[in-house]
Each structure stands twice: as C-alpha cells, then as structure tokens.
C-alpha cells in the first residue's frame, strides 16, 4: 500500500508566518508578478515584506503605504522595482536549488530526448544555462548529466554553455568554489564525488565536471550574439528575465524559442512564469515543476 509517509512528492513548506502581514504586501506581490512573472506564495509573503522593509529603510519610506506610492509613482517606479527585485532574489541561488526540475530531467525529459534522437549519428545533448551568475546551476546540471553517463547517456557528448552578462560572475563561475551556503542543498554523495576541499570552509568543483561547461560573457539583448546560440536541447534561465521590460523580454523569449531544437525544453525559476508573453511554447507540468516545451515536429502540434 502507498502511505502518506512514503510519498515521493515533498510536502510543501509548512505554514506560516506567525504574524499577519500588511495587506498592502499582497498588492505589491501582484505588482511584482505583473512586471516580472515572479510569484511570492502566501506563506513566503513575509520574505517579500522583509525585502520591502530593507528597501524602505534605504529610501526612507515611513510605511508600507508610502513605499507602495514610490513603487507606483511614474517617476520612481522602474528604478525602485529593479531594486526590489534585486532584494527579493538575492542569495536565492544555490546548487541543487530545484529538485523537482532535476527529477523531471532524469525521469521524463532525458528518456524522451534520448528516444527522440536514437536515429541521429551524433549522440549529443546541448544545454544552455542563460544568466548563469556564479555557476551554481551550470554545475548542478553538469553533475546530474554525469550521473547518467553510465546509463541513459552512455556514449553521449554533453555540452553545457553557461553565459552571464557580468564578467566578475563569469570569473567566479569558472573558479567553481563554493561555501556552506551555496552547498546547503547539496548531498554528501555529490560533495564527495564531484568536489575537492580547498580549505576548511570551501569546496571546489572537480575538473571532470568543469570539462562539460564553457563559461562566457553574453548579453541576452545582443541580437547578433543570440543568433549563434542555436541547436539547444535544454535552456535554463532562472530569475533573469525579471529584469527586462515587456518588449525586450518578449524578444529574448523569442530568441530562446528559436535557439531550441524541436522537442526541446525551456525552464525558468521555480516561482517564475512566462505569463502570456509567448504562445508558441507549450506550458507543461511535471510533478512539482513547470517547463516550456517547443513541440517536436512529429507531434504535429506547432
């Protein structure tokens, strides 16, 4: 018998902030969703309130209501929203950040991609970590691909392109050195297998993992460069699109769509959505994860 205790699907974070939050934060939550596609769950609303609190201190707003005015006033809204988005997405990055995405990858997507490509001469998978920041996501993907290298992906070549706008981030990503905080969700198994200690507090990613990844600087708004990123099977772009305004966001998403192979998948951050910015992608659900699919040619659903 299946029991609730055995359930593979994790119970969602237990509720709930002890104090009720000011209703204005729900308004801010909806505004943030409208401009960025990031949705703060009710039980995480206090995180949004904390972020607003820090911004309020810096700009000298006396009350959440004052801050709301700042966020909506024509003269200040764009700049302040950007600051706020920075505030609420900061420090979110870590390795193994979204287990449901990785489960979907192992259990559904890789078997599907491998089956689709069996007739191809070159067994190759291309993955793009777009807006890779300091490399956490890229290495997580690389390690997970290596885990399949004796099974599903035996004899396959894996190429991961990892790009970011920020030079310093790209350098840090190349170094691949992480402390406890970035590794808080990484199991001992992965730490032992794919990292070497460099001092008491830090671990460095091993060369065999790095070998899979090419790090480089790229501006997602640079159309000519974007045209060179063709032939991807998977694209991950976590908490990056939130910084673009509507029209440039649509353009970047169109690029992602055309850079994907038919049958490929595009993933955003766990609480992020494309809203209704692109109607070519199919929004698909996996247990606990949302992805965007570019239909394969044979599915006839273009």
């Amino acid at each position: 018998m299946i029991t609730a205790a055995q359930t593979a699907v994790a119970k969602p974070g237990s509720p709930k902030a002890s104090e009720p939050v000011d209703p204005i934060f729900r308004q801010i939550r909806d505004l943030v969703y409208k401009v960025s596609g990031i949705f703060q769950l009710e039980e995480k609303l206090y995180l949004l309130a904390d972020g607003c609190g820090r911004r309020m201190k810096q700009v000298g707003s006396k009350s959440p209501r004052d801050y709301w005015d700042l966020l909506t006033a024509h003269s200040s809204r764009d700049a302040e929203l950007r600051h706020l988005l920075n505030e609420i997405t900061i420090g979110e990055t870590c390795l193994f950040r979204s287990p449901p995405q990785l489960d979907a990858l192992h259990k559904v997507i890789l078997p599907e991609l491998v089956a689709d490509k069996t007739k191809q001469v070159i067994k190759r998978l291309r993955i793009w970590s777009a807006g890779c920041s300091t490399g956490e996501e890229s290495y997580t993907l690389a390690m997970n691909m290596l885990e399949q290298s004796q099974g599903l992906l035996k004899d396959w070549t894996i190429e991961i392109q990892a790009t970011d706008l920020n030079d310093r981030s790209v350098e840090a990503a190349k170094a691949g050195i992480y402390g406890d905080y970035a590794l808080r969700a990484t199991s001992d198994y992965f730490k032992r297998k794919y990292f070497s200690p460099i001092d008491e507090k830090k671990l460095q990613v091993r060369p065999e993992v790095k070998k899979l990844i090419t790090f480089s600087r790229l501006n997602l708004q640079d159309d000519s460069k974007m045209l060179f990123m063709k032939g991807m099977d998977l694209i991950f772009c976590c908490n990056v699109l939130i910084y673009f305004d509507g029209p440039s966001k649509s353009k970047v998403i169109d690029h992602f769509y055309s850079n994907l192979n038919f049958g490929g998948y595009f993933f955003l951050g766990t609480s992020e959505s494309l809203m209704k910015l692109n109607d070519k992608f199919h929004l698909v659900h996996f247990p606990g994860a949302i992805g965007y699919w570019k239909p394969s040619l044979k599915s006839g659903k273009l």
Partner: protein
Amino acid sequence: MSTSVTTLIREHVKRIETTPSIPTVFLPLLELLNAPPEEVKLEEIIKLVSYDNTIAAQCLRVASSPLFGLSKPPESIKGAVISLGLRRVETILLTCCLGQAFPAKQWALDPTLFWRHSLGCAMVCRKFSEKLSAADGDKAYMAGLLHDIGFMVNCLAFSKDFSTTVERALREQIPLDEAERAVMGFTHCETGHALAEKWHLSDDIMQVIAHHHNPEQCQEGKPLVALVHLSDLLCRVRGLGYGYYERRKVDLVHNSSWTILSQEYRDLEGVDLARFTFELDQDVAEIYEMVSTIFGAVAARN
C-alpha cells in the same frame, strides 16, 4: 467495455452492502448540498446531521481543531456553520460520512492520500470554475470530491487485484488508471459508476465519475467532466496526487478537455495557468492539515 465485465462489477458492488454501509444521512445530505446556494436549507441540514450522533460528534471535533483557529470551539452543528461557514462544514460532513462508509483497514491506498486528492481536486474544481465565471462552483466541488470514488469500490470489492494494481503503478511510476487497465481490465471509472448508480447520484456527477479520464467520450455534461479531468491532472502534479512520482508530462492547454472548456467558457482564454498553479500551491498545506484532522478523527473510530 463488455457487458460481462459490467455485470461482474455490478455483482461485486451489490455485495458491498454487507460491509459497513454509508451513513443514512449521506445521500439526503448530498442532495441538500447540491441545491443552488440560495436554496440551501440550512435548518434541514442541521436537523439531518443531528440525527447521526457519530457524524455530528466528528464534525464538531474537526471544527474545534486548531486548524480552524476558532477562539471558542463550537458546541453545536449550527454553531459550527455560523463560525466556519457552510462550505467548510459541508466538506467536513461529507468527508466524515464517506470515511465512515469505508473502513480504513481494507485500503490498498492510504486513505490520507485518497482524501488529500479528493478534497484537493474538489477545491481546484471550485476555484477553476470561479476563474471561468461558471455558475455552479458547488456542483464542481462535489464532482471533484466524488470523482475517484471508484477506488473505494476497488479497495472493498477487488482488494487483491487492486493491491497488485497499486504495486504496479508504484513500481512503474505510471498513472493508476493505466495500471488498472493492465492488471484488472477495467478501471475505477467503471466501478465508481456502478456505485454511483446504486447510490442514485445525479446524472452529471455520474458522468464525471464514469468519464473523468476520457471526457471526449461522454455524451452529456462534457464541460463539467472536462473541468474535473483538468483539475485532477493539476492536483497530481502539485503534491495532491497518490503519493508517488508519475513519470509523465502534462500539457493541460493542448488537452481535448481544455478545448471542450474553451468552447463553453470565454474566460478560459484569460486564465494564466502558471499563476493558477502557484495559487493552488498556497492551499496545499491547508488541505494536508484538514485531511489529517478529519482522517485522524475517522481513524480513531476504527
């Protein structure tokens, strides 16, 4: 399905009468609650429930749990309705009744998981129909609550085969209805339909029970069946499934049920599915707590 299988199922369902049967108040209660909101006869519901001491006591016990945060536990069903609202009390009553009808010890499925899914689906159905500005949210709720009732019949009347089915679904990470077809040759849709006939449930609910896995094949009331089909799928990818990983991707928008609904409801076009999914996540924790409180009460009785 062949007539002989239908006859076999009917025979088995008939025999369920020898096991603890459904509380006498259940069906009249269902009928009263099925009435349009403006016609719900509160006094009659209260009177009806008061006939069955066990149900009334259970309802009060659940209503007094910390989950509902009442400063003073209600002393009567009327008090519970006043402080919790009719809808909440409805849920509690129906679940207590059904929980009593089916003893815990014969379950191949963990009742906790069953109730989480049933209540979760009921809630999603109601919210979905609100998004569509559909008139009858309560009907949708009822349909969601009862759609999988055939699993109960399976547990009672086909317990051995159904245990094999559940094991197979778990092992192969496939949907239960697929495993049912492979192992038993029929599904909970058919067994649920036989029970619904016996209980004289209304036609539209009967259609939902019989066709929620193949809405395009039902003759009448397609939109409601389609709504339950989609809500069911959504629950199963957002932590309200049957407690194991179902290896598949779910494309709700390119599902025939979505098309059926879009022909009926214009508002569907405006639904932001990602956001609807995130909003659902907010309620999952509440469903978990509600079920452990209700089911805790039922288990204590057995």
